[in-house]
């Protein structure tokens, strides 16, 4: 669309575009993933979407697709494939991870909703927050499944990362009268009660 962009990028886009919708849709995305050699649920996909600033899960506009790849600095499948490891490394960069994490919330929710559906949250969370990053991630997901059963607010999502960053494994510094979201209060209380600290 006349942006002075790389013709190669545009051609690449056209390969995956769904002609009727004028965007890349699910089918195209699956092929795209196959081509670059990653599973669609792979967390690096989120990183790629973040570069694209894709607004909706399951579709890329032309602008998003091309802009994203440009942002990564590639214009072909091969170069993108080669860039995968460095994209993964971005998850280890503290500042970038925070942006990716917060982006993931917005990206995963339905367009017209403020909150993120629980089941989606529970599938995205473990991707970004691995056991190495936070040992309690499984317990957290279990807790939400059994006790919360409702959608996740943005505040809870973002505050969780803060919480993980600041809090030590035994929650010794935790202050329930502070401003942590109440879900986190309840989680900490439950973990302490069930004696699962350290597990």
């Amino acid at each position, binding site marked *: 669309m006349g942006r002075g962009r790389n013709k190669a990028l545009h051609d690449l886009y056209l390969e995956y575009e769904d002609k009727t919708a004028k965007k890349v849709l699910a089918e195209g995305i699956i092929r795209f993933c196959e081509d670059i050699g990653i599973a669609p649920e792979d967390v690096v996909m989120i990183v790629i979407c973040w570069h694209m600033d894709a607004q909706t899960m399951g579709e890329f506009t032309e602008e998003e697709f091309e802009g994203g790849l440009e942002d990564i600095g590639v214009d072909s499948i091969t170069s993108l494939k080669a860039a995968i490891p460095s994209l993964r490394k971005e998850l280890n960069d503290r500042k970038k991870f925070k942006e990716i994490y917060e982006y993931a919330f917005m990206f995963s929710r339905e367009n017209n909703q*403020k909150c993120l559906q629980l089941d989606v949250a529970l599938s995205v969370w473990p991707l970004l927050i691995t056991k190495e990053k936070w040992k309690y991630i499984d317990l957290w997901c279990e807790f939400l499944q059994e006790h919360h059963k409702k959608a996740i*607010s943005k*505040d809870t999502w973002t505050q969780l990362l803060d919480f993980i960053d600041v809090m030590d494994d035994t929650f010794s510094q935790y202050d329930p009268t502070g*401003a942590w*979201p*109440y879900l986190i209060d309840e989680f900490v209380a439950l973990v302490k009660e069930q004696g699962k600290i350290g597990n």
Partner: protein
Amino acid sequence: MMDRKESRGGVKKFVIKPLRSRTSLPEDFRDANWRQLCEAIDAIKKEVPVSTSLEQLYRSVEDVCVQGHSEWLYAQLQERCQGHASSVLSSLSEVVQGYQEQMGDTAYSEQMLDQVGGLWDVYCSQLMLIRHIFLYLDRTHLLMKSEHRSVFEMGLRYFKEYMNTEYVQVKKMVLQGIMGAVDAERRGDAVRRDVLKNLVRMFALLGLYEDSLMPLFLERARAFYAEEGNRIILDVSLSEYLEYVEKRISEEFNRCDAILEPITRIPLIQTVEACVIEPHVAYMLEHGFEKLLDEDRIADLKRMYDVFGRVKAHKALCLAFKNHLKKAGSSIVENDGKDGDMIKNIISLKHRMDKIVSECFDNIIYQDAMKDAFAYFVNLRSNRPAELLAKHMDSILRGGGKSVGSGSKGGRGAEDDVEAALDSSMAIFRFIQGKDAFEAFYKKDLAKRLLFNRSFSIDMEKSAISKLKAECGAHFTSKLEGMFTDVELSKDMMASFKTSSDSMEELTNVCPGTDISVQVLTSGLWPTYPMLECNFPENLANGLEVFKKHYLSKYSGRKLLWLHSLGTCIMKVRFSSGVKELSVSFFQAAVLMAFEDSDSLTYSEISTATGLEDDELKRTLQSLACGRERVLLKDPKGKDVNDSDTFKFNSKYTSKLYRVRINAIQMKESVDESRKTNEMVLQDRQHQIDAAIVRIMKTRKTLGHKLLINELISQLRFPVHPPDLKRRVESLIDREYLERDSSDPQIYNYLA
């Protein structure tokens, strides 16, 4: 020798000249006198009559002193007295030793004490006699020059010295004897108090009271009561123990007055208190105090207050009182099987405790403790006590004297009882923290009473309102008062409607033979009622319109909405046994009207005819077909109404009464209603919290979490928990009224 002078005139002058020679004292004047005095002293010592008269002896002393021999005389006297004291003590020592051999060291003998007392008395009187003789010496030489202030005192001094040194065994035995006697009296034996008093006085006179007798006495008392107290407290009930304490203290007091020096009184009583009360304070509070409170044992509790006051243990007693009260109250409130009696039981507990505090614990710390305890348990179980209190007042205001068990049949007596019942309720209301919940329930019940004319007396209603106003201020009761105004205004409106000939004419035209009465409620003052639709026969609907027209002619700017769910009517219905007047709700009437043309209808037919919503329709049909007065018959039989049921008009219905009331549902309290009101209160509170948060944040622009929470707690007029407040804050973050500060997530910023 007279010199006779020749006088020339006749007056004779006499001159007297002193004697040339002086008279002189006998050589041994001093010693002779002393010998005589000595004899006298000896006689006194031997208790035999003195040969010389006392007068003479006295004069003798005076003579010797006047001749300048005071000093010498005094020295002699001292020597004699010293000897005297020594010999008396020696006799005492013999006496005492005799008894000691008999009894050993620990027993005592009243006889011995008596004897000792007797010997002492003799010594004292001997000393007095000697003093009489040597009075002149006493008053002159001794007064001014010597270390002893009197002969008597000198005698005592020597006695004391000997008793402290050579004859110290006498002192020991006598003290032991006294102590033994006192212990015996404590154990219930009769003892010779006069003997004891005498001996105690002896010690006092000798100056041995404070350092020898008193410490020993206190120690013996301590030992006795420590043992007895520890033993008895395990054997008897609390009230018996308290009586025991009082009795013993009074006995000791008594005995102290009778035989001891006044200076002993306070330390003695303190010693006893320290043995029988102080160590057992905790024990007494744990074993029997609660029973005394439960059984309203006024006399025992008063005694306990006094006893504890002696050892300054009021703090402990008050705390135990508070804790017991908290426990008793909590068990009333938390017993959810007995909700119907909760308020009555709380009121009765309050009356009992008021009595106990005023008669037994007349002290502000107990009054405060009672207030704290009540404030604690009345606010357990969130809004339930508030709801039940409103219900309690509702039954008072509906039933009048009868409902409060008044003996009077009516008039002043019954009114006073109702007033008293309302006052008792107010006493409980004072403690409720969630007063907004109370208001919601009270309003709901008040509305029913006003709309269905159930109040026992409007005066009583107004009295209740003014009591609430006095507690909470006009703001709290303004809506309630508005409800009364609405009722009055409706009456006026009806009067004007009935006198308006135009309206009356129109009414007769559209629905002849029908009388209408309307209550107009100002929305916002009354509880919210569901606006349910219903199909009416046209003529009735038009009749209602006539009223509406009349009303709007008086108040043009207003909007009227019918609350058919509250409407009632009286229908004349023909049964095979005759015509009956049925007092029914509008919805019930609508259902019955459907049977005007056909005897049997299915559920769905009735539903279409009445236009009533399902839940309401089912309930209405139940009231007509499954209750006590069955004007409809349901097929299949049973209490539940299902979509597949059919209904038939029960022409065979009979009743003893001509006018039958079937609209009982509206008056009956449903569990549903209670739940709805509770929800409404919670919703309302949530809104208030949200509004408060926004208001605070708007003013402050940015505020830390804890400060915000504190500010909210101080502003909100109902009890809240910080976690609930936190949830509302998060909700407001979600709705983008607030955000977390980017540099510190514990701080919030207002988003304009």
